């Protein structure tokens, strides 16, 4: 399903004017606080009627201000996890979770309550009321409620912001599965670039009510122009890799265009194809193949571009076959190693640098 969104709306002192396409998969809206992300989602969900706009999901017109079409929220079937959880205070957690069930079309591929409850770790809360939940617990129930409503599209507004890393690490793969197995399109607002890199099929960068860049995740993340918009520390490229073997010492061996790659155990069968995000700052460059070091991965690449930053840093774009890699080094090192386009260099990467959250199924 592809979502086409074109909106124009003005609040006192704020103008939203966006147009973008959200193809199947996860589309992440990324932007600073107050840039208009929630406003966009509200319009998609039908909670805000924009001054002008047209929103279609494949050939269903959700909104067309010109034609006067405006599907009411309950007929849009968009599972919305609000930035503030908005649980129903008079219902128990279980009733909150099952609320959407009443209204879901019969026979739709149903997600099991038990499964979601386990995933979100809210089994002990089922008979409580929202008033007595912690901040993170509320947010988890809200996620469950949206998923269980059997929506045609999920809209998640910073769903994991209030959660600890461990819980995030459990929920993210599940969202991935929703994306892949149920082929549920997801609109996702997040400030955490690791979530973006891991989940996103498409990234939409917003700034002050406008879209400053939009496109496939790999392209946006490895583009030295857009990368700084995401925060320099989070710049990085996505490599496609295939699982070759699961070694005994807990490492997984993969192969990518630039050579072999060892990562801490990846829970994927041999032959599986994965997206591995490699942060620019985790990549060290060497002119000669280093020896006697702890880093396991040494990839042969060629410098394609060197972009000096304003500060002490530089972004080096590397080519390996038809894949791209980004490395962030100091300008001093660029000078010392004499890095220039066309020069072959070794990219050194520690196996442990690649976090679980940066390895995702291709989707």
């Amino acid at each position: 399903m592809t979502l086409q969104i074109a909106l124009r709306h003005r609040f006192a002192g704020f103008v939203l004017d966006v147009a973008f396409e959200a193809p199947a998969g996860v589309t992440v809206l990324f932007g600073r606080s107050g840039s208009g992300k929630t406003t966009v989602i509200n319009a998609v969900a039908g909670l805000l009627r924009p001054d002008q706009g047209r929103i279609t999901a494949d050939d269903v017109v959700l909104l067309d201000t010109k034609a006067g079409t405006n599907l009411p929220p309950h007929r849009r079937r968009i599972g919305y996890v609000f930035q503030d959880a908005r649980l129903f205070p008079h219902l128990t957690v279980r009733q909150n979770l099952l609320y959407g069930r009443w209204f879901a079309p019969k026979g739709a591929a149903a997600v099991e309550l038990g499964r979601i409850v386990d995933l979100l770790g809210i089994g002990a809360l089922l008979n409580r009321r929202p008033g007595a939940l912690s901040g993170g617990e509320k947010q988890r129930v809200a996620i469950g409620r949206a998923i269980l409503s059997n929506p045609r599209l999920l809209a998640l507004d910073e769903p994991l912001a209030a959660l600890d890393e461990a819980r995030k690490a459990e929920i993210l793969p599940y969202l991935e599965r929703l994306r892949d197995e149920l082929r549920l399109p997801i609109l996702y607002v997040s400030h955490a670039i690791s979530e973006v890199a891991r989940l996103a099929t498409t990234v939409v960068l917003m700034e002050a009510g406008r879209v400053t860049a939009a496109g496939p995740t790999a392209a946006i993340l490895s583009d030295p122009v857009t990368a700084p918009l995401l925060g320099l520390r989070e710049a990085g490229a996505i490599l496609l890799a295939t699982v070759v073997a699961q070694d005994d010492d807990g490492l997984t061996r993969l192969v990518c265009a630039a050579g072999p790659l060892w990562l801490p155990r990846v829970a994927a069968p041999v032959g599986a194809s994965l997206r591995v995000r490699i942060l620019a700052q985790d990549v060290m460059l060497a002119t000669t193949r280093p020896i006697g070091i702890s880093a396991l991965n040494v990839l042969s690449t060629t410098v394609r571009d060197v972009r000096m930053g304003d500060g002490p840093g530089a972004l080096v774009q590397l080519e390996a076959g038809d894949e791209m890699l980004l490395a962030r080094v100091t300008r001093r090192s660029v000078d010392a190693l004499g890095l220039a386009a066309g020069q072959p260099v070794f990219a050194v990467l520690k196996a442990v640098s690649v976090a679980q959250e940066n390895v995702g199924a291709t989707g």
Partner: protein
Amino acid sequence: MADWLTPDEWRAVALSLRVSFWATLVSLPLGVMVAYALARWDFWGKQVLNGIVHLPLILPPVVTGYLLLVTFGRKGTVGLYLDQWFGIVFAFRWTGAALAAGIMAFPLMVRAIRLAIEAVDPRLEQAAGTLGASRPWVFATVTLPLILPGIIAGAILAFAKAMGEFGATITFVSNIPGQTQTMPSAIYALLQVPGGDAQAARLVWIAIAIAMSALLLSEWVARAVARRISGT
């Protein structure tokens, strides 16, 4: 009890209970609807409706009674047709007393419910909408449970008012023992009699006892509901 209440008084107590109960019960759904419309919708004539709802409060009860008499009386503009077409007669029946009590209590009920509706966070209703609930369902599953304390408050106000209603009732349906003589009418009649004070006082105490019981019950229910909502 039958010892110290004359049959007429006894009947007045029973009648008052019946009248108040039905007046409250029947007007409740209408009260919720009107309160919802006033709280949430913008429509032409909204303030007119609002005014009409408040009318019984503003007018001296006798006037309301007369208006009822000329409207719903046996020869009244509406009463005539209700009788001819549906065989419904309010005039000089206990149903008429209930009608009068219901109308007199209506503004109180509507205002309580309306305040409760206005206090409901519309964002919760929006959330219900995104989960697939249409307007009526949102109302039934979210708004209604959340305004329950307000509905209870409205109902108890209406019940209490109906128990105490006198002016409009006696004017509309007169004061016929066993049929339209409610407790306030009975008390009034007793007060007109030399030496009737003691008997009137007895009825007053009974009225107070009944209303207090209803009040306590409502407080208790409202508390239980509020506790459920606050989640402890």
